[in-house]
Each structure stands twice: as C-alpha cells, then as structure tokens.
C-alpha cells in the first residue's frame, strides 16, 4: 500500500530537470516512441525482426536529421554573429 502511495505521489511533483545541454537527451525516448508507433501502424505484418529493423532505421534517420538541422542552425548563428 505504501509503495502504491509512493508511486502516485511521484506524479504530483515535477522532477528536477536543468536547462542544460544534457536535457536535450530527453528527445531520444520521444523519438523512439514516434518511430515505434509509426511503424506499428504502417507495417502490413509485424514480425519481431522486421519490426525492430524498420523501427531502428526510422529512429536513426530522425536523429541524424535532427543533428544535421542543429549543426546547420548553429553554423548559421555563428556566421551571423561573427
């Protein structure tokens, strides 16, 4: 009973999450969730191997695209401010 109360209580106060570069890693679980749901709705038949392969490919391509976009924006900001 105490354990249940503890779990419920943990949802009533926010966690400490600093505004630092490390907090950007919070995008990774969200990207994984998007990749999993998208592939779960689009694949005609779901087998473990095929699903993991497709999801990993989508997850990787989203992350790479985010990195490319971030680098482009960083370079642009650097060129403007120099």
């Amino acid at each position, binding site marked *: 009973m105490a354990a249940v109360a503890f779990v419920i209580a943990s949802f*009533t106060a926010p*966690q400490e999450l600093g*505004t630092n570069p490390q907090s950007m890693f919070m995008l990774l*679980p969200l990207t994984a*969730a998007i990749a*999993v*749901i998208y592939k779960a709705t689009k694949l005609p038949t*779901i087998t473990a191997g095929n699903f993991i392969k497709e999801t990993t490919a989508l997850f990787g391509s989203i992350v790479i695209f985010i990195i490319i976009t971030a680098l482009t924006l960083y370079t642009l900001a650097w060129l403007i401010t120099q």
Partner: protein
Amino acid sequence: MERRSKENHALFLLTAGLLAWLIPGAGYFLLKEKKRAVIIFATITLTFCTGLYVGSIGVIDPVASKPWYVAQIMNSPMVAILGHISAGGGFPVYGRPNEVGHIYTGIAGLLNLLCIVNTVYLAHQRRAERSGD
C-alpha cells in the same frame, strides 16, 4: 437490407474509433491485431506516463494551456479526470519540466490520434474487402 448493412458498418467504425480512444490500442484488439494493440498500448502509455512523471499532473491544465490539453485528451477521455483534478492550480510546474511534460503528453495524444484514424481506416478496409466492394 443494404441500408441496415451500411448502418451496421458505420456503427462498427464508430465502435472501433471510440474503443481506440478509450484505451490506446484497443481498436486494433477489436480487429484481432493483437501484436499491434500491445505495442501501441505499451508505447503510448509509457510516453504519457513519462510526461506526467517529469512534469507532474500539473502539465494537464485545461484552463491555462488549452492547446496542449486538446492534444493530451486524445490519449484517452480519462485525461479529463486528471484535468479536473489539476484545474484548481494545486500542482504548479514551471521551466524545463513543464516543457518536457507538455511535449511528451501532447505527442502521446497525437500519436494515439494517428492510431485512432488508422484503426477506423483499417476497419473500413476490412469490411469493404469482406463485402467485395
């Protein structure tokens, strides 16, 4: 006879859509797509709970953050109960946890909306194939 069949078809689509909204993945369960149902239920529930854990139930605020609430309620009508609890402003949340909580719970809702639309489409397609249209 044909009209009756069309009414049944519309009712089936409505049931599948409502079930998919009530419990994420339940619409696929109705269509006997058990693997899909389990994957979708686990992923959407986990994403939504992560958002609630990081930002607390204060991120579900039907008064101060209405646009986010519209996305969050797509998870399940049960979000309205959480919205009712937190509407009094008893769970204040600011800064990065607020942002992350909103994004996680909102995206989970929008992903469930995608699943609801896909469930209804799949249900329609199955019935159309069965009746030979």
